[in-house]
């Protein structure tokens, strides 16, 4: 399991990304953050967010239209 959990279900763009950025500040380098989202743009958004911020997207899943991402803080 990830070290921290962020639930942004029901929030629309750009709030999931803004909340994730804020939450990652409290994750130590090497630690992980799991994000739960329902925004249909979230899958591609989190891929792009991790690429541009240099963090690692360890997992991206869709379970009953809830998207789950695990991000490893590397930057």
């Amino acid at each position, binding site marked *: 399991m990830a070290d921290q959990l962020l639930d942004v279900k029901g929030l629309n*763009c*750009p709030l999931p*990304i*803004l909340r994730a950025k804020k939450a990652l500040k409290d994750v130590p380098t090497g630690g992980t953050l799991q994000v739960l989202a329902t925004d249909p743009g979230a899958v591609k958004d989190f891929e792009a967010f991790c690429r*541009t911020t*240099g963090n690692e997207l360890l997992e991206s899943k869709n379970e009953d239209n809830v998207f789950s991402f695990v991000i490893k803080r590397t930057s």
Partner: protein
Amino acid sequence: MASKTLYILLCSGEHEKIQMAAMIASVAAVSERPVEVFVSMNAILAFAKDASADTRYQGGTFSKLLKEKKAPDPITLFRQGRELGDLKVWACSMALDIKGWELDQLEDDLIEGALGLTKFLSDAENGQLISL
């Protein structure tokens, strides 16, 4: 790889355009892209400290929907982008002069200062410019 700075020239007082500018600015900032926003013309009226929530933005059909669905307020989004990334918002010195405003009449903890268009355009030569 360092991203090119994004420059946003925000002149419209329309809710829809200010919302889009705030979304672009905040997402770019948290994606570690530097952002500079230059606020002028009708857009600067939306940044007045004493503007009421109901009249702060002009808007049409989509503005009503944004309010109904309780989309995040653009001023809040700009603030969050500023807290979480390298986002600077500048007030057009000409617009301030025309309105007879000082910087302290604009929203607190948001505006970096007053800036001239010549400096903004000169800085923007090395980045990407979006106007709204």
